[in-house]
């Protein structure tokens, strides 16, 4: 079904109103040589019942967090979210509306995005946030551009412990605009403030540090950003985990000027990697250089408190080549999911999730290091994710666990992780969803495979 609604007589009536005999006349402007007369070579149309069968059939060939305990993380986490989110987000008034340019017809979306911005600003301990970007990786790139555009400097220092995909996207985005990336070397899986100091100069626009980093280790944002700030106007850019903000020091409290993140853990499904949302918060001084949509509070002609898109002169549809970013469509619905999630849980709920994840991750890590030959790869504090070095081939470990119905984590080696390691590290994430029973079962499998 193509979802059109006209019957034959209506079509005839409409053609008569236009004053033509056939629809083809409307396409006469297209030169004959380029018309697609043979038709498209596609499968014939499926009815809705056939579509349901076909989709269910394809879905049945997939295995994931729905049928296996999932200990995989590295930027996408199997967190709990309340059932009401799927219900509320399905309301057509949210789902089928456009970007809220028309304030008088879009107060619902606008208020929700304003609430989202405020929630993200509070979660990060910063002043403002935008209404979302595509994902964590592109948010990092936009943060780097925000810092370089603000300072007119041409270099960013980047922690080598950041998610390798974020580094890869940053390389792509910065490659043609003359901004250099200097990778900061890690010591025992984290970046030392001394390493930042060693690489600082007045050419540096920003210092980007992710915490918890790709290994799960908590970085010293305070120390790194203090070194960055020794050169005035350098931006401390923290890449954060929004759930960790429920119990760990926030970016703002550690001296960050800009904070970006993958927002998926806030009420969004794993979805094989998308749609997710990028979070971007900053100090107020960055307001007029921010990328993406911003919703502001204002009044209507009768004095009511209302909301509208604002500072649009930053944006591509007004500014063209001089815009702060080319972002147009962002991830509105994902931002609304995140906001619904934060509204339902509040600080207390997010703290509970974070704390349970913390305790469970530490329980599992303690159990694993009791096994012969297994050890934690790094010595520093971690949140809900940690790295172990397997006493045997990590591929064998992963395959064995999967054949026993468990997704044990992400192997650090291989092309998928952009060559992060060539060793036998396994990165294990533990959310509040994992039970003691599931963790004990994983430990037993690890023992068995390495015996």
């Amino acid at each position, binding site marked *: 079904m193509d979802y059109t609604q006209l019957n034959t007589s209506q079509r005839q009536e409409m053609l008569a109103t236009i004053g033509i005999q056939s629809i083809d006349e409307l396409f006469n402007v297209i030169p004959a040589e380029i018309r697609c007369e043979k038709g498209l070579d596609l499968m014939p149309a499926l009815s809705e019942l056939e579509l349901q069968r076909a989709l269910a059939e394809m*879905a049945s060939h997939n295995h994931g967090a729905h049928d296996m305990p999932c200990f995989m993380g590295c930027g996408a986490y199997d967190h709990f979210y309340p059932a009401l989110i799927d219900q509320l987000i399905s309301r057509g008034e949210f789902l089928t509306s456009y970007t809220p340019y028309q304030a008088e017809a879009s107060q619902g979306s606008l208020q929700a995005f304003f609430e989202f911005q405020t929630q993200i600003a509070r979660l990060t301990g910063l002043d403002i946030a935008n209404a979302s970007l595509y994902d964590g990786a592109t948010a990092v790139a936009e943060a780097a551009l925000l810092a370089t555009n603000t300072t007119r400097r041409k270099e960013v220092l980047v922690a080598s412990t950041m998610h390798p995909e974020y580094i890869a996207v940053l390389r792509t985005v910065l490659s*043609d605009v003359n901004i250099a990336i200097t990778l900061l070397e890690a010591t025992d899986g984290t970046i030392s403030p001394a390493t930042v100091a060693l690489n600082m100069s007045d050419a540096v626009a920003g210092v980007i540090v992710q915490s918890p980093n790709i290994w799960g280790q908590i970085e010293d944002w305070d120390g790194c950003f203090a070194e960055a700030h020794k050169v005035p106007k350098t931006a401390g850019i923290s890449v954060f985990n929004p759930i960790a903000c429920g119990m*760990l020091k926030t970016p703002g409290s550690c001296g960050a000027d800009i904070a970006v993140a993958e927002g998926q853990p806030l009420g969004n499904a794993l979805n094989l990697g998308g*749609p997710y949302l990028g979070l971007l918060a900053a100090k107020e001084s960055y307001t007029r250089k921010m990328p993406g949509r911003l919703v502001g509070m204002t009044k209507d002609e009768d004095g009511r408190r209302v909301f*509208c898109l604002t500072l649009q002169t930053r944006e*591509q549809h007004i500014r063209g080549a001089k815009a702060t970013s080319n972002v147009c469509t962002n991830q509105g619905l994902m931002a*609304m999911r995140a906001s619904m999630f934060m509204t339902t849980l509040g600080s207390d709920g997010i703290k509970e999730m974070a704390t349970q994840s913390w305790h469970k991750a530490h329980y599992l890590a303690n159990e694993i290091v009791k096994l012969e030959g297994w050890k934690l790869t790094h010595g520093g504090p971690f949140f809900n994710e940690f790295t172990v070095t397997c006493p045997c081939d990590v591929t064998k470990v992963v395959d064995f666990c999967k054949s026993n119905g468990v997704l044990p984590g*992400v192997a650090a080696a291989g092309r998928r992780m952009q060559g992060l390691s060539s060793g036998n590290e396994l990165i294990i994430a533990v959310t509040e969803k994992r039970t003691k029973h599931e963790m004990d079962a994983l430990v037993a499998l690890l023992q068995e495979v390495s015996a």
Partner: protein
Amino acid sequence: MTTLKTMKKQSRGDKPTEPLVFEKHVAGAIGVDFPPLDVSETKVPEEVAGGCTTLPSFGQHDVMAHYTHLSDRNFSVDGNFYPLGSCTMKHNPRINEWGAALPGFACLHPLQDEEEIQGALRLLYETRTMLEEIAGLHEVSLQPAAGAHGEFTALKVIRAYFADHGQTNRTVVLAADTAHGTNPASCTMCGASVETVRTVNGQTDLSHLKEVIARIGGGNISAFMITNPSTAGLFDSNIQEIADIVHEVGAKLYLDGANMNALLGRVRPGDFGADAMHYNTHKTFSTPHGGGGPGSGPIAVTEELAPYLPVPQVMMADDGSFYLDREREKSIGKVRSFIGQFGVLVRCWAYISACGPNGLRNVSETAVLNANYLAARLCEKYPMPFFDPKNGKFCAHEFVTVPQNLLDKGVTLIDITKRMIDYGVHPPTMHWPMHDCLMVEPTETESKQALDSFVDVMLQIADEISSEIELVQQSPLESDIARADEVAAARKPILAFK
């Protein structure tokens, strides 16, 4: 014509302002609970402990009420005529939502091994090949997250191609004066500079195109970005000649695919000489706009540009299994994390599969028919610079009107559009691509009754401008709010609740 009643049952002022979540906080209340911790506790070291304590919470019933009240303050495709030009606000089929929510799709981790996600990779591969066929181009990348991201990605691909062929001085991109704002903004993000090409009567001015090329030097140009049909709603019948002019100097023709809804199954961009293009699945292929995303912006390119596409690429192996190719030697690299807007692409697959080849052709035919029908019924009261059916001048899937006759009576374009809100119609795109214009795109999924109701609304507004002009000048009168003070909002921005 009978006088229309405006649609809203309640008049403004009856509906109280919905408090912000920050004003509803109830200490100790929470919208959802958690199971007790089932493992021993581990102390949190002081040097890392902290956390945000200022997010409000309240009971679950009030969470539902809050968002239900907010949803009541939104126009939507489900509930309103939404003729937003260039945005293709068509019906969003719910089978698509049903499919994307299946646990076998929604619960997959993006770093899982390929053998566990064969069904998902099959869907991506089929989407890729269907989009290649619709474009008439060699290869599609599903990576870009939205249309503008697709532009950025394709421009990087073109740049990489030229760099690989020793033509690094091709740093200028041409764009029409009616181009979407994303076109020049994407150029800037790729380190390219932009030169504008004039349009005349909604079509590319060929002599100006040649003039600009001569002035800049053909060897300095990487691409010409064209939207076809143009943002004025007209198919550029010189498109082959434009392609020839661009190709003659070794540059590439880029198609902004925002208006693909007018071409489906009728014309394939590859057949008229496009070297690269992007789709907006949230326009052409019915994936919901979601109040500003998620979108998805797959790009299609010729064989010579294909080696430079971003990684990963979904592939089919000789044995019929599917895998992700992450090692393209000449690739521009990664443009986003993981493997694309998968959930959006499930919806896209479902839509194309529902339509089939004949359905897609009927989509574009009906979209064009609907637009021309509206134009024919409205052109007397709403003058249209490019629409003249008696002389064979039709529009594509959207049309532009410049209602100078009405503006001359003392209303602004904003007055007209705000009055439409009173009648339950979402305002069309305005002041773009021309000053004082409305750009109307009805899409193919509207019924004749809905089209006729829209005509009634527009004619009534024209009448009101003659008889009761203050109704229009003071509108919207029955929406949730009066006109928002956007100037004050920008002068002293309040972006977070304090």
